[in-house]
């Protein structure tokens, strides 16, 4: 499903002394099957924007198109449930949405709401469990007896079981330790490749955007500051600084390395061992 934002603005609490414009005239396109990242400082409008994609918010101006669904102020009351079945959202700290007595019931909660048949449900639950790499033994346990990391995986499984065509990830690694963060991101990336899902990552970790995204959107103060490939985005050091965003660590190191040694190594997603080889080759050549 292609996603399009046409002149979208959103104002919270319109016509009150507390009104606040969170999105300003956003225009953008996300092609089906892409992995895109939205980056921006806290309060830049990232979360508001993503809530438009599954109709949790309706633009106060402009139109959001998700496949055949058109969302705008004029077109009220549509079957949002159909849209939400196709657009899965993993919210920040998704384990906070768990409520059922067993893991199995919690994963099947969404499926029930979307009227998936009983047999289909069984297979979907097992598939989802495999995707998030949880042992089927947890199915009959209470989700609240699990560790924090496992709870998060259960919550994610609940979203994946719906087999969404678009998967929105809102800071999916918040609060995890570095190892846990890496595991979760690798899991989503593998899923993206295997299922050709459109994946939309909202993050403030530039390293993640650089590593996984095909296309990056940078938001600042509710406006789209710039967009493009990671390579393009991270060349715009001035704009990034203006949006109060860091450079990914690897790019900073390479940049300083190139300056200090007068060499030229470009980052193309190499692993540390490949990078080390390139550095060695360059340094030896220099001598």
């Amino acid at each position: 499903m292609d996603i399009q934002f046409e002149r979208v603005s959103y104002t919270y609490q319109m016509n009150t002394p507390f009104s606040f414009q969170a999105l300003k005239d956003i225009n953008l396109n996300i092609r089906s099957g892409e992995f895109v990242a939205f980056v921006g400082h806290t309060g830049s409008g990232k979360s508001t924007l993503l809530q438009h994609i599954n109709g949790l918010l309706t633009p106060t101006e402009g139109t959001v198109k998700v496949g055949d669904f058109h969302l705008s102020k004029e077109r009220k009351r549509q079957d949002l449930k159909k849209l939400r079945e196709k657009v899965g959202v993993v919210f920040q700290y998704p384990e906070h949405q768990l409520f059922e007595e067993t893991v199995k019931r919690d994963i099947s909660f969404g499926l029930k709401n979307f009227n998936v048949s009983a047999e289909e449900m069984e297979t979907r639950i097992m598939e989802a469990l495999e995707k998030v790499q949880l042992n089927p033994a947890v199915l009959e346990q209470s989700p609240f007896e699990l560790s924090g990391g496992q709870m998060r995986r259960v919550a994610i499984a609940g979203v994946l079981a719906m087999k969404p065509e678009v998967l929105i990830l809102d800071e999916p690694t918040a609060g995890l330790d570095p190892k846990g963060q890496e595991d979760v991101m690798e899991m989503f990336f593998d899923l993206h490749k295997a299922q050709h899902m459109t994946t939309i990552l909202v993050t403030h970790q530039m390293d993640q955007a650089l590593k996984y995204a095909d296309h990056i959107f940078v938001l600042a103060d509710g406006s789209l500051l710039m967009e493009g490939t990671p390579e393009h985005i991270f060349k715009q050091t001035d704009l990034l600084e203006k949006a109060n965003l860091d450079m990914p660590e690897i790019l900073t190191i390479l940049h300083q390395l190139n300056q200090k040694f007068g060499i030229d190594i470009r980052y193309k997603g190499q692993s540390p061992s490949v990078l080390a080889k390139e550095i060695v080759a360059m340094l030896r050549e220099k001598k």
Partner: protein
Amino acid sequence: MKSFMIIGQFVPGNSLIHRLDPRTKLLIIFTFVIIVFFANNSFSYGWLTLFALILVFLTKLPIAYVIKGITPVWFLIIFTFILHLIITKDGAVLIEIGAFKIYEGGVVQGFIISLRFFLLIMVTSLLTLTTAPMEITDAIEELLAPLKKIRVPVHELALMMSISLRFIPTLLDETEKISKAQASRGVDLRTGSFKDRIYAIVPLLVPLFISAFKRAEELAMAMEARGYHGSEGRTKLRQLQFSRIDYTSMVVYLIIMVIFFSIRAY
């Protein structure tokens, strides 16, 4: 979600009413609420209405906002009016539709009760519109302080109130987040039968309670770590101070009330 919370939501400002000591406001409003019930004729009602409107004017808040703020209560006001139309059978018959008769006394009575109700709500909402919740808590704690002598835990109650106030925005945010997460999983709170909708609240309430308990536990631990062990030996940063505008306001209020009682007796 948030739009429901407008009833008396504090709007910061610097008007005369904003600057009054919260105790002054509390005393004036508390006595006003009682005095409204003493109004007995159209002049005394008129006088109180005028007073209330001047108060609204003095807050410098947009009138439309104040009126909109009491929207949820309009229903009750109108309901009261209609109720009196139906049950009061006094005076001449004004309109007759089949077996259904509206009496003059019903209209008058309905109007008076609704006006009384309206005045009460409007004036009390002015308190919360112009006073930070914490100031109200302080004022209550100060005004109730004499009750400590008869072992009413005034300090603890005030602290509980201030913590609740502190966490209202947090819990509202949380409610919104969880309901959005569940809506994304296909929960629909707006359609379906009454029974369906009741069931749809469970996935919202359970996570909300779990998180509220967790917050309470962590907060209690943080308070203990910072040395909280009851009111004993505690000092206070917040201090309320009456100033000249408070004394002036109270004298003016007193004069207005004296006039009210003379109109009433007239």
